[in-house]
């Protein structure tokens, strides 16, 4: 993937990927005003604008990924201040990859959003929707690119506040979106405040906010013997872990997720399911490995995380089997899939962290595509209960084929991306000699087979309630992004060289501090 941009732009790529959606989002409000003067075309104008902005962001992030792979990590000092004083944006093999994933999903979900938003959100709010939408993408990319811990908190709140708003916009269709959004807001804010407390303890200990500098200070203190039984260090780690687990919806702290994903507008479900929790997992990587790596003995904590993840895989899959709402099935399945990522890095070996990073990418493709397919059904049929899906395979074959291929990815059928993730995960568990963990991973696949098959059976083999009702195939603006994601999940399931190499480079960086 080679994108050639002028040198003057390439030097500023790390900050451009954040600034483009930030200012794009603000300007989108004025476009809405312009549109209302031109009598009610504000929504279309804002959509075109958002496609342009997210498209440019995608080009920038692709170029950034290429630059980092070719030329090694980049540091961008905002305002040319040294990193100890100002804010530094650090881009390395890990976050260049995650930024690319977020930007790609952001662009495709924006293209997808047009018809879905037009049918689900009242007309006078479309330009506001796209403004908040772009800000959410800005926050998600910002968390990933920044190398400053307090900046992480601020951008985390930008992305969270906008996502709460986006979820609440589902209230036009179903009032339960409002209560789901408020629950998400309260639990999310508690999580963010815990993260803020954790950062505070770290600041107390090291006197700096920059991640690399923090790590250097901690290493120095450890060598001077100041970290023996240091309770400040322990408490900061505990606060950060609880806060991050809330944000990424790790099993016992996942209660906000199913309702928020279910009642959000379809386009929002697709964007958030594919990116928000992944960015949470990325933050956990950064804290556990980049800051505490080699300083704090986290063996016991990782053991605890692995335990939560194993419980999450089994119990959330069991919940998914019992749901009568297709979006809720996918939401519970997301809780299980996040547990796979956590399980991977809590094994803390090469194959485990590689599995984790690779699953961030693969699951974003699969779940993004599947939520898009459900959104198309919501558009054409008007509901997302299981009954609405009866025999829909014959009416919307292309959409439902995408859904089915995505479902195979969730199970981990060979030749799909999900298989690659599980392969690495089982390998990591074997290397550690944790047979129990390998068993849980395979059991999770089996349970996924049950909840996916239940849907597939209804979609393709059940008789529709009204066989003669005309239901059209989804529009092209929905089908194309959906099939790009699902198609990519098959391509990277057959030939995983590129993803495996990127993920392996990231794992090397996290575990050993360099390639």
């Amino acid at each position, binding site marked *: 993937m080679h994108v050639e941009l002028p040198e003057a732009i390439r030097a500023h790529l790390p900050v451009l990927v954040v600034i483009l959606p930030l200012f794009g989002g603000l300007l989108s409000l004025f476009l809405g005003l312009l549109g209302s003067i031109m009598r009610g075309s504000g929504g279309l104008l804002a959509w075109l604008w958002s496609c342009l902005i997210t498209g440019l962001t995608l080009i920038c992030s692709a170029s950034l990924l290429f630059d980092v792979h070719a030329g090694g990590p980049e540091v961008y000092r905002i305002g040319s201040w040294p990193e100890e004083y100002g804010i530094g944006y650090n881009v390395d093999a890990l976050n260049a990859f995650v930024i690319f994933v977020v930007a790609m999903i952001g662009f495709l979900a924006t293209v997808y959003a047009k018809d879905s938003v037009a049918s689900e959100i009242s007309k006078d709010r479309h330009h506001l929707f796209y403004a908040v939408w772009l800000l959410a993408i800005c926050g998600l990319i910002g968390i990933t690119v920044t190398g400053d811990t307090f900046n992480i*908190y601020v951008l985390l*709140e930008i992305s969270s*506040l906008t996502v*709460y708003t986006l979820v*609440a916009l589902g209230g036009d269709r179903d009032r339960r979106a409002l209560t789901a959004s*408020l629950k998400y807001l309260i639990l999310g804010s508690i999580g963010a405040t815990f993260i803020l407390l954790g950062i505070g303890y770290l600041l107390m200990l090291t006197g700096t906010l920059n991640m690399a500098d923090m790590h250097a200070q901690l290493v120095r203190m450890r060598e001077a013997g100041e970290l023996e039984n240091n309770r400040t260090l322990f408490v900061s780690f505990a606060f950060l872990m609880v806060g991050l687990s809330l944000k990424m919806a790790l099993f016992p702290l996942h209660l906000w997720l199913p309702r928020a994903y279910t009642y959000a507008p379809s386009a929002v479900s697709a964007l958030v399911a594919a990116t928000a929790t992944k960015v949470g997992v990325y933050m956990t990587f950064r804290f556990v490995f980049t800051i505490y790596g080699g300083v704090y003995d986290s063996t016991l904590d990782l053991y605890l995380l692995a335990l939560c993840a194993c419980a999450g895989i089994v119990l959330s899959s069991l919940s998914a089997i019992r749901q009568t*709402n297709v979006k809720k099935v996918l939401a519970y399945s997301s809780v299980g899939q996040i547990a796979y990522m956590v399980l991977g890095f809590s094994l803390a070996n090469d194959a485990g962290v590689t599995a984790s990073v690779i699953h961030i990418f693969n699951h974003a493709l699969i779940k993004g595509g599947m939520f898009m397919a459900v959104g198309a059904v919501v558009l054409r049929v008007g509901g997302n*209960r299981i009954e609405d899906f009866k025999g829909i395979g014959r009416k919307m074959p292309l959409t439902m084929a995408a859904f089915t291929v995505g479902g195979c990815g969730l199970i981990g059928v060979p030749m799909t991306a999900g298989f690659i993730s599980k392969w690495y995960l089982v390998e990591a568990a074997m290397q550690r000699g944790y047979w129990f963990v390998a068993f849980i991973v395979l059991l999770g696949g089996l349970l996924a087979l049950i909840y996916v098959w239940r849907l597939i059976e209804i979609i393709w083999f059940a008789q529709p309630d009204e066989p003669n009702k005309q239901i059209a195939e989804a529009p092209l603006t929905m089908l194309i992004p959906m099939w790009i994601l699902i198609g990519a999940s098959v391509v990277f399931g057959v030939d995983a060289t590129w993803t495996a190499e990127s993920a392996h480079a990231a794992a090397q960086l996290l575990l050993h501090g360099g390639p």
Partner: protein
Amino acid sequence: MDIGLFNYWLAIVIIMIGFYGVIARRNLLKQAIALGLFQTGVFLFYVTMGVYRSPDGVPGIAPVWTDAAKTGPFDNPLPHVLMLTAIVVSVSTLAVAVAIIVNIQRKYGTIEEDEILEADRLSGDR
């Protein structure tokens, strides 16, 4: 005057009161208020962290203006500045929360969590 760890204890007490309120109250607006209190406790924690005293209680001196008689005691301004940002975040969170609660009141006619759950149960899980 040396107050020891008093401020830290106070911060923890405020945080815990707020946290308890978020969990225990069934009125959505009260939950939002408790959430604000919870975050305020963290502000106090950060601001206290910035106070600089040498081990025998002598206040710090500004690194540039070293004439302590003219400048007065010096504290680390960084945590204070961070809290300006965090206060803005907290206010925005509260604003979004209240906006959602207003909409809940419009659609459900109540902001009591129990009554909302009851209303959802009656309308059936669609």
